[in-house]
């Protein structure tokens, strides 16, 4: 078990290093921050000085090695834009994203498991029709469009909820709802099909022959067996949300890591771009290891 974790951690570290290399050089392709931050008519000397302050005067390879050297002591550099350590900026934004992701995921998982299981129990029944209908809508309606329509209807038109930002509970309703729709449809379908398989398994016959109640057959006997594919998809969806729900965050002016990433790319704030990618990647690697461990907890036949 420990050996498995160590192996996975090392593999993740290697992937992180590749990510550093790729993102470092790719972000440099977007151009020189100097052009963005200084006025068009800035003097050559002040340009030189700006470059020198931010280490941009060095050859690219030297910049890279300096960056990696600092990274080794968890120094992610300074944000050019905000003049603060990049890591602080990212963690602050990430806190928001994490909350948004966890709340949404919790609701999605709960709803998808309940509706999906009931749909699977009576295929073709009321829940099943609802599930199919809703997941089709969820999968086909583009979220940016839904988000804008929701703002127009509920914020501008009806005035029920604020249009953007954070602050009150009301601010969360629209972003969570919009983020909820697509994963809900997807996870619902996975729960449904996984539960249909589990419910047709032989051990369900045994449970029925024992006289078990329908509730226990669905949620104790079948669900536990059906969970593996379900948590795989939930993990996948979670990764998407932790990366920052870029579109939703941008539309709702939500100060999460997705919005921060877009902003920093546009602002050529390289340290922030790198730091946000590293932080989200780290969390996603961590989550994947956790999911693998969860497999073993859920299914005693899986041992590492």
């Amino acid at each position, binding site marked *: 078990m420990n050996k498995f974790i160590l192996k996975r951690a090392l593999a993740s570290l290697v992937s992180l290093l590749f990510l550093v290399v790729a993102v470092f050089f790719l972000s440099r392709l977007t151009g020189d921050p100097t052009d963005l931050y200084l006025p068009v008519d800035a003097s050559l000397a002040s340009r030189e000085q700006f470059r020198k302050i931010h280490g941009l005067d060095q050859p690219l390879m030297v910049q890279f090695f300096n960056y990696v050297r600092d990274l080794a002591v968890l120094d992610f550099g300074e944000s050019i834009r905000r003049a603060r350590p990049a890591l602080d900026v990212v963690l602050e934004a990430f806190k928001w994203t994490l909350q948004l992701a966890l709340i949404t995921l919790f609701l999605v998982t709960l709803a998808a498991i309940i509706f999906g299981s009931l749909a699977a129990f009576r295929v073709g029944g009321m829940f099943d029709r609802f599930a199919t209908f809703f997941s089709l809508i969820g999968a086909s309606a583009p979220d940016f469009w839904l988000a804008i329509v929701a703002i127009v209807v509920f914020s501008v038109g009806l005035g029920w909820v604020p249009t953007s930002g954070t602050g009150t509970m009301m601010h969360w309703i629209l972003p969570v709802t919009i983020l909820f729709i697509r994963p809900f449809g997807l996870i619902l379908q996975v729960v449904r099909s996984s539960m249909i398989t589990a419910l047709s*398994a*032989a051990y369900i016959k045994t449970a029925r022959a024992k006289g078990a109640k329908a509730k226990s057959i669905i949620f104790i006997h079948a669900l*536990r067996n059906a969970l593996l594919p379900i948590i795989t998809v939930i993990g996948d969806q979670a990764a998407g949300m932790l990366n920052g729900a870029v579109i939703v965050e941008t539309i709702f002016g939500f100060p999460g890591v997705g919005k921060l990433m877009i902003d920093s790319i546009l602002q050529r704030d390289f340290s922030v771009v790198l730091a946000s990618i590293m932080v989200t990647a780290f969390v996603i690697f961590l989550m994947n290891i956790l999911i693998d461990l969860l497999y073993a907890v859920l299914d005693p036949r899986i041992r590492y």
Partner: protein
Amino acid sequence: MTDYLLEVRDLSVTFHTTRGPVDAVRNVSWHLNRGEVLAILGESGSGKSVSAAAIMDLIDMPPGEIKSGEIFFEGENLLTMDQEARREINGKKIAMIFQDPLSHLNPVYTVGWQIEETMVIHGTARRVAQKEMLSLLTKVGIPDPILAAKKYPHQFSGGQRQRVMIAMALALKPDVLIADEPTTALDVTVQAQILKLLQELQRETGMGLVIITHDLGVVAEIADRVVVMNNAEIVESGLVSDVYHNPKHAYTKKLIASAPGNGEMSSGVKSQEPILQLENVSKAYGDFVALRGMSFELMPGEVVAIVGESGSGKSTVARMLLRLEEASGGVVKYRGDDILSMSSSELLSIRRDIQMVFQDPTQSLNPRMSVYQIISEAWIIHAGIIAKSKWKERAGQLLEQVGLKREHLDRYPHQFSGGQKQRIAIARALALEPKIIICDEAVSALDVSIQAQVIALLKGLQKNLGISFIFIAHDLPVVRDFADRVIVMKSGEIVEEGAVQQIFEAPKELYTRNLLNASLDPDPKVQAARRMAAAAVS
């Protein structure tokens, strides 16, 4: 009203499928007395399990529909009760165990929890159930119950799993136990133990036992009365010895006649230059040794049977010599060349000569390929055997050779029965005109009447085409009918080897004798005599 403990009266069940309604049982009536063992005997698709499923409320409706009939348990009609009342009876008054306990036990819960659950469902407190569970495990012969209770189903052997199922079913001392093919997937010696356990528990508790089986031997061993089913109907019923010795219905007669183990034994083939020689072949998976230095020879046109219980290494031999897996050591000489050290191109030509037929044709035939594609694929892999223009013709011939029709070429595997599918698998093997065919439990999954036909087919191939067979099986009577020579294996080693007559009539080793004694004879008199003899010894 009824005087019987359990009575099924005029039951008809239909399943509505996409291809129209299918009658699963038609006007079936039978009854069970307290303390009685009733066998429902039938082949696959005969509807033998359907009345039990109706009793346990396990028929999904739709697609199932109970068209007519009544099921009386202690005088009350189960079919007119509400769901809640039936749930109260299930597990408490009528319990059921199934074939293949591995898939019928929930893989993610401990066996202790699953046994307790039966009691908890019906109102026992968890703590009381826990204690009772431990004594149940002891009763069904599971060693170290406290430790065993914490284990999961996959950590037990097949026989132990069935014991767990039995413990679970008997937890609330039901009046009726229904056992659906309880020993089918088990080794013969384990089968004997489980049947003995069921018998003991049945006598001790006085419950009625319904045993659903395809195996005449099981009927002879355990049942008082038998109901014979064919094609969704009961064709005959009566006391076991009456039915066996005086079968009235043509189907019963046919079933008894096709029981394996009564034909003439081979007197062997004359020894000559062996076509295949195994020398000291071994295989280890990590620390586990599956095969320890196996050596034997196969003559042209000879049938060598490898018998043994699960885990004996008998299937490992086949995988080694086809190099489906790499052996850990040893030599396999095919006409003088060592297969184990061949390059992959040399191996390809050897694979043409050595073909394999697997146990479960449903899994070994690709469901998305037509019969023609399945057979002709071999000619794509081994180019130049016959011209493409003749493929259709030759594939048709092969089908006819295995007793199928030319028209079947365009069909897909799911359109055939189990026996027909195995014939397709044999036709596929024959496409390459092999010298050796390895049959890995090739007839184990088939009904006895089909089994007899397939064995007859293989015998014909041996005689007419001079093909050698390595026949891997756990079923001794079938081996007796087909093999020239028998190798008995246990824990990766050869226990005994000899001509078929010697092994069956004068086995030298105790293990072989036990194996032979454990296999059940379809004749209830023979079985009774064996039981007496066994009781006298112990």
